[in-house]
């Protein structure tokens, strides 16, 4: 009996927005994830931490549809999505902020945002509301995305994902290559985004930020979940042991 199904008949608990149930993921013949389970409730911030090569990005790529798994291993809003490709998943409300931002380099800031809005999902996020969240982007709307600072580029990447009006936002290494003050600024915005009805999964190496921002944390090591729980209940020692395996 699957975890999702068990919860359905349990009835005491509402089904989570995203249920990852004993996920195995592969790069060709190489197995990167071994039976990873994780749940994200509506409007919740969940972080996934772990060392390099622990399988964090693989997990996000599996959820986003870039890596195929068997359908029932990933259930989104009650629908098995493990075998779906990215575009239909975006239509269902899963948005991604890829690692390293990866803006469309020949497009202006505004055009980058518009690509996110192109699928036409309805919701609170429009060019206008993204510019309200990041006023600096309004000034730079007609500039090439490559001419922006790292922090501003990250804002465009966040805005571009929000423009799809997601129910679930996957953030891969938001802090990568950014100054600590910018990282704090960006993390401070997460509650605003969540307040508008978006659940967030953060994959981070910056553990302090990740733990501070999230309700629930999962620690991955060599493709397995070694620890999970509410950050408040976890001791530093437990996190350290789960992270490094010492």
């Amino acid at each position: 009996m699957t975890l999702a199904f068990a919860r359905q008949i349990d009835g005491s608990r509402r089904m989570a927005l995203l249920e990852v149930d004993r996920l195995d993921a592969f790069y060709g013949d190489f197995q990167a994830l071994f039976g990873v389970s994780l749940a994200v409730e509506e409007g919740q911030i969940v972080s996934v931490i772990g060392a390099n090569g622990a399988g964090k990005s693989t997990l996000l790529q599996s959820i986003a549809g870039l890596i195929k798994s068997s359908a029932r291993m990933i259930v989104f809003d009650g629908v098995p999505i493990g075998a779906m490709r990215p575009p239909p998943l975006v239509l269902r409300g899963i948005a991604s902020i890829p690692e390293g931002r990866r803006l469309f380099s020949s497009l202006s800031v505004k055009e980058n945002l518009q690509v996110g809005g192109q699928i036409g999902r309805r919701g609170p996020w429009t060019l206008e509301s993204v510019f309200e969240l990041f006023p600096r982007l309004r000034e730079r709307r007609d500039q090439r995305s490559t001419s922006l600072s790292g922090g501003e580029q990250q804002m465009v990447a966040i805005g571009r994902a929000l423009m799809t009006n997601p129910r679930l936002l996957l953030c891969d290494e938001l802090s990568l290559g950014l100054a600590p003050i910018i990282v704090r600024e960006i993390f401070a915005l997460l509650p605003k985004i969540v307040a508008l009805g978006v659940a967030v999964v953060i994959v981070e190496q910056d553990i302090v930020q990740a733990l501070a921002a999230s309700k629930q944390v999962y620690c991955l090591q060599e493709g397995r979940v070694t620890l999970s729980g509410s950050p408040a209940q976890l001791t530093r020692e437990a996190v350290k042991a789960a992270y490094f395996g010492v």
Partner: protein
Amino acid sequence: MEWLNIVLQGVLLGGLYALFAAGLSLIFGVMRLVNIAHGDLIVVFAYMAYFVMAALHIGPFTSLIVIVPAAAVIGYGLQRGLLNWTLGDELPPLLVTIGLSVIIQNLLLEAFTFDTRRLHAGDIEVMSVQPLPDLSLGVLPLIQFATAVVIIAGLQIFFYCSALGRAFRATSDDLVVAQLMGLETRHIFAMAMALSLAVVAIAGVFIAIRTDFNPFYGPQLLIFGFEAIIIGGLGSLWGTLAGGILLGVAQALGGQINVGWPFLAGHVVFLMVLIVRPQGLFPKVA
């Protein structure tokens, strides 16, 4: 004045080359696909025009009303049914389009024999204007050149001012992230091929009014297209127009010096540009 005349003939011919090249460049830009069958598809559309004209008793320009939409549908189908499955690596699409080229040539030979054909446009073929006493320009080449400029300008506007054009550019920048933003890239590729072949169909009808064609005429057109793109600089449509014009002028001047030299002169100019300025005249700034 004689030389000016020749240069202008070359310029007008160059517009046509730019039109071949625009379709080729569009496909390479959006999906990094080098379509070796491009020239053969031009010839296919010329044959289609030939038979549509005969069946409906219409002229070549009117036949475009049928040929252009048909070309777009064929392009969409070709991309979704075949070429999308080959993308991902550089070699497979190249091999598949080489195969497609051979198949098209032999099917055309089987169906229509090696006889050369030509599309007849009527009186307009011999009409000319004389802006200066010694200068005579054919009406047909002028129409072809103007059409090429309008189409290239239209493509430019389409790329920078429409949602689909934006999706083309986004997909060209980063295929994976385009998918993560919900763009159905298989559909976008097919739309790009549809647009490319629609442009190619116009070019095909024009070239077939101008010169005789046969089932094996395609590869030569493909080379002209490639040369125009490389001379102009990859990724720039106006550069492609400039490249086409330079190629046309080189061929016209070469032909004037010696009847046997037009293509040779074109290739020599192409090689010189490759040596002196391998990035082309107007490369796309990344």
